[in-house]
C-alpha cells in the first residue's frame, strides 16, 4: 500500500519536490477522516432537527458519553468475548486440520464423512446455540463451541482441497525417488496445501 502511495506521490515531473511526511499523511488519512467527521456531524444534526427520542436513535455525542461512563464494564466484557473467540478459533483450526488430514489419508473416511460434513452446513448455528447452552451451561464453553463450529468447516475444506489438488505428476516423480507415503505428504502435499489451508483459516477468522 505504502509503495503504491509513494509511487503516486512522485509524479514524473522531476523538478517537483517530494512531498513532506506530514503532507503525505494528510493526503492518505485526510479524506477518510473527513468523511467520518462529516457522517457524525450529519447524524447529530439530523437527530437534533427531527427531534428523534434518544432511546430510538442515539446521537454520537450521547454514545461517546455512555462509552466513557461504562468504560470499565465494556473493556471487561470485550476481553471475555475476545477470549471466547480466540479459544474457539484455536479449537477450530486444530480440529479442522486434524479432521482434514484424517479424510485425506483414509479414503473410507472421506467417502463416508465428507458428504455428511457438507450436509451439516445447512444446520443454522442459531438452532444449535440453545442446545449448547443446555448441555454446557452459561459459561465460556457454549460460546466457544459455537465459534468452533462456525470456524471448523472452512479449515477442513481448505485442508482437504489443498491436499488433494496437488499435481499428480509431483507424486509420480516422488515415487520414483524413493518417497514413502509420509515423505510425499511432508515434502510435497503439505507444503503445497499450506496456502489453501491458510485461506480456509482466514475465512474462518472473518
Amino acid at each position, binding site marked *: 500500500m505504502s509503495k503504491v502511495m509513494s509511487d503516486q506521490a512522485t509524479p514524473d515531473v522531476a523538478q517537483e519536490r517530494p512531498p513532506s511526511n506530514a503532507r503525505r499523511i494528510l493526503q492518505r488519512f485526510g479524506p477518510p477522516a473527513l468523511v467520518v467527521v462529516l457522517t457524525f456531524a450529519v447524524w447529530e444534526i439530523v437527530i437534533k432537527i427531527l427531534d428523534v427520542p434518544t432511546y430510538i436513535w442515539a446521537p454520537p455525542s450521547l454514545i461517546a458519553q455512555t462509552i466513557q461512563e461504562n468504560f470499565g464494564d465494556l473493556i471487561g466484557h470485550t476481553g471475555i468475548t475476545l477470549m471466547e473467540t480466540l479459544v474457539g478459533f484455536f479449537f477450530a483450526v486444530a480440529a479442522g486440520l486434524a479432521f482434514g488430514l484424517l479424510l485425506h489419508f483414509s479414503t473410507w473416511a472421506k467417502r463416508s464423512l465428507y458428504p455428511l460434513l457438507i450436509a451439516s452446513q445447512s444446520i443454522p448455528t442459531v438452532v444449535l446455540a440453545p442446545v449448547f447452552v443446555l448441555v454446557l451451561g452459561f459459561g465460556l464453553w457454549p460460546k466457544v463451541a459455537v465459534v468452533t463450529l462456525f470456524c471448523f468447516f472452512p479449515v477442513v475444506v481448505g485442508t482437504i482441497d489443498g491436499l488433494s489438488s496437488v*499435481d499428480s*505428476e*509431483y507424486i*509420480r*516423480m*516422488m*515415487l*520414483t*525417488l*524413493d*518417497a*514413502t507415503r509420509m*515423505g510425499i505428504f511432508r*515434502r*510435497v502435499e503439505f*507444503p*503445497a496445501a499450506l496456502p489453501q489451508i491458510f485461506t480456509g483459516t482466514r475465512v474462518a477468522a472473518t
Partner: protein
Amino acid sequence: MAGARAWPTVTAVTPTTAIELRAVHQRFGEVVALVDVNLTIDRHERVGIVGPSGCGKSTLLSAIAGLIQPTEGTIAIEDAITRDERLRRCALMPQRDLLLPWRTAIDNAAIALENRGVRRRDARERTRPLFERFGLARFEERTPAELSGGMRQRVAFLRTLMAEKDILLLDEPFAALDSITRSGMQEWLLTALHQEPRTVVLVTHDVDEALLLTQRVMVMSARPGRVVRTLETDFPRDRSRREIVTSSEFTTLKEAALEALEL
C-alpha cells in the same frame, strides 16, 4: 554418512541385461496403448524411443518405472519383476522440471536422499559436489523461480542422478526448452552420461535428440503403439554435437527414422 563421497555410487551389478520387456501390452479400457513390445536393454546402454504424440511412449516409460503394471507381458529390471521393486530401481526425469518452488535448487536435487531418511544437512553436503561438477556452482541456494529453464532442467537431472539408481528414465526431458537451450542441454547431458554411465531410456518426439543421445533408437508407430523400426547409432565421443548432426551417417539414420515414422 557425511559428505565423504564425491559422487553417488551405484552398486555394481554384473553386466548384460538391465531391462527386459517381453510381450508387453497395455490397455486403458477400450484404448489400446501398447501392442507386443519386446525390448532388451544392456547395462549402461542408452536407448531412445521416438514416436508421434500419443503413441504410448510415456506409458511405456511409466510401465518400466513401475508406476503402472502392464495389462499383459512381463517387465524385468535386473531381477525385479513386481511394480514396487521396479519403482525402487528406476529414477524418472519428467518433461516438466517439477522442482518444488519452496525448496532451493540444492534442496530440490537432494530430495531423493531425504526421502531415504538422510538428514537434510548431510543430503545437501552430498549433493553439493554435483553442482560444481555440472556447471551449477553458486546457484545452490537459488529458488527455481530464479533459474532459467535450462538450469531448472539441469537441477531436475541432478535430482534424478542423486536417486543413486542405475536406471534413468528420461521422459522428453528437454521438450519444454527453446531449440538453442535444448542443443546446449543435449551436449551437456551427453557429457554427463559419458562421465557417469547409466542405463538410459530416453523418450522423445525429436528424432535428432534420440539419434544424438542414444546408441539405439526404437521407432514407434501411432496408437496402438508398437515398435516398427530399430536403428543402431553410437557416434564417437570426441565429436561435437554440430559435427555429428551434420555428418552423413546422421542424415542417413535420420532419413530412415523419418521414413519409419511415415513423415
